[in-house]
């Protein structure tokens, strides 16, 4: 357990190397490499269908890469021991509509062998007290999103992977989420947020990885993001374009 324990070290919390993933047909991810250190936030940008969601699933270990490796806190993501350190909220809620908010969270507390007060705390953190005993299927999109986030951080993960977490949130919930993310970050959590909003990325993240057509089109400080820059990147490498073009942006750490 030494690598898992020592999470403040120089070792990256998330490391992906040469990741390829094919589902049906052509690969969705092509030679993706990236690193995120503890206490760092990475924004994952890209047009729809660029492979952001697939990459998050692969980083979480829910999907296995066709080629390449993912290392979480110094261990292969395939090692069951790393699972309890990963928090993941995809664009679907992973909640059961017929269970209430608290029942859903308690269910996950059971799976993570945590006391039920974690479920209550997590609910409080997102200001969900009044929805505690409402079945999830009766809640609005934005509230479900908050319950889903509450579920993702229930077990105090060290690696948090979020897919479009701000979609459907009202202004105050969004502010609450930003606050929460920065406090998690201060505690050394490594965060990856997939988004298609450049300003969101700039505000939240230290680094930004831009995926276009399943490839890393750019890996650079988030502060440098502008709409023009993104538009240029999206234009440069559309899906289906063969081979790297002359003058194409530099790839993030290529492998092989």
């Amino acid at each position, binding site marked *: 357990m030494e690598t898992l324990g020592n999470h403040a070290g120089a070792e990256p919390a998330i490391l992906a190397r040469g990741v390829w993933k094919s589902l049906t047909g052509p690969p969705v991810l092509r030679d993706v490499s990236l690193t995120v250190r503890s206490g760092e936030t990475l924004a994952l940008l890209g047009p729809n269908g660029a492979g952001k969601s697939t990459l998050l699933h692969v980083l979480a270990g*829910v999907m296995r890469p066709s080629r390449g490796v993912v290392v979480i806190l110094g261990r292969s993501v395939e090692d069951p021991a790393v699972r309890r350190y990963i928090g*993941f909220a995809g664009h679907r809620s*992973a909640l*059961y509509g017929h269970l209430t908010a608290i*029942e859903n969270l308690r*269910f996950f507390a059971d*799976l993570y*062998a945590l006391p039920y007060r974690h479920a209550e705390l997590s609910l409080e953190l997102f200001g969900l007290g009044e929805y505690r005993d409402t079945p999830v299927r009766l809640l609005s999109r934005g509230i479900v999103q908050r319950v889903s986030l509450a579920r993702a951080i229930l077990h105090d993960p060290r690696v948090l992977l979020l897919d479009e977490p701000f979609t459907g949130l009202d202004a105050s919930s969004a502010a609450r989420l930003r606050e929460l993310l920065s406090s998690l970050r201060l505690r050394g959590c490594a965060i990856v947020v997939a988004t298609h909003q450049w300003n969101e990325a700039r505000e939240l993240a230290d680094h930004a990885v831009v995926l276009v057509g399943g490839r890393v089109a750019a890996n650079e400080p988030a502060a440098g993001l502008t709409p023009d820059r993104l538009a240029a990147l999206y234009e440069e490498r559309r899906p289906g374009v063969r081979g790297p073009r002359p003058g194409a942006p530099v790839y993030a750490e290529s492998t092989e």
Partner: protein
Amino acid sequence: MRALLAILRKDLTIEGRARELAPSMAVLALLLLTAGSASGMVNAAPAMLWITLLVAASLGLARSFHQELDQDQLSALVLAPINPVLIYVGKGIANLLVMIAVEGVTLFAFTILYNVGVPREPGALALVLLLGTAGIVMLGTLLGAMVAVARTREVLLPVLLLPLAVPLLVAAVRATEKVLAGQGIAAVSSEVGVLASFALLFGAAPVVLFEFVVRE
């Protein structure tokens, strides 16, 4: 253990509230029994009973993993620090309980529609029913997880389940026949052997194979 109970409780709570499986299974079972009885299948009562149970099970089990997929709950389950087999075991026990409830209704109707009396050895009948049901549910739950992602799961599940369950069907029907005719447990030992082996095989196979089914 806590995770297993949580999964089981979750599945039963949802079934209790949504009532998605049991009622449709029970109604289908009653319809099949009625159709069989009306069309003169009374002489083949045991065969009718087991075909009814298999078809009703395949209807319900095809949907039993649906609720893990519509919001991608399965990803969250697979990500949790538990042995993935627990997902199968929890779901399997829940399905077994649902199936036993459906069977209660089915047997009641069966007794009336097929004019069946209580056999001389009710224990033997109970054993055959229990082993047969367990086998159907164990295999069906594994298949249910496998076909859950397919667009055509309602068709695919029976197409896969029925041929694989033939040994169970043959043995269960023959055993039921004999027991209803008044024979004892000793007369059906080889049938019970097939049923027990079937339950054993499809109870053990998922321990190794289930992870491959749910993990992309």
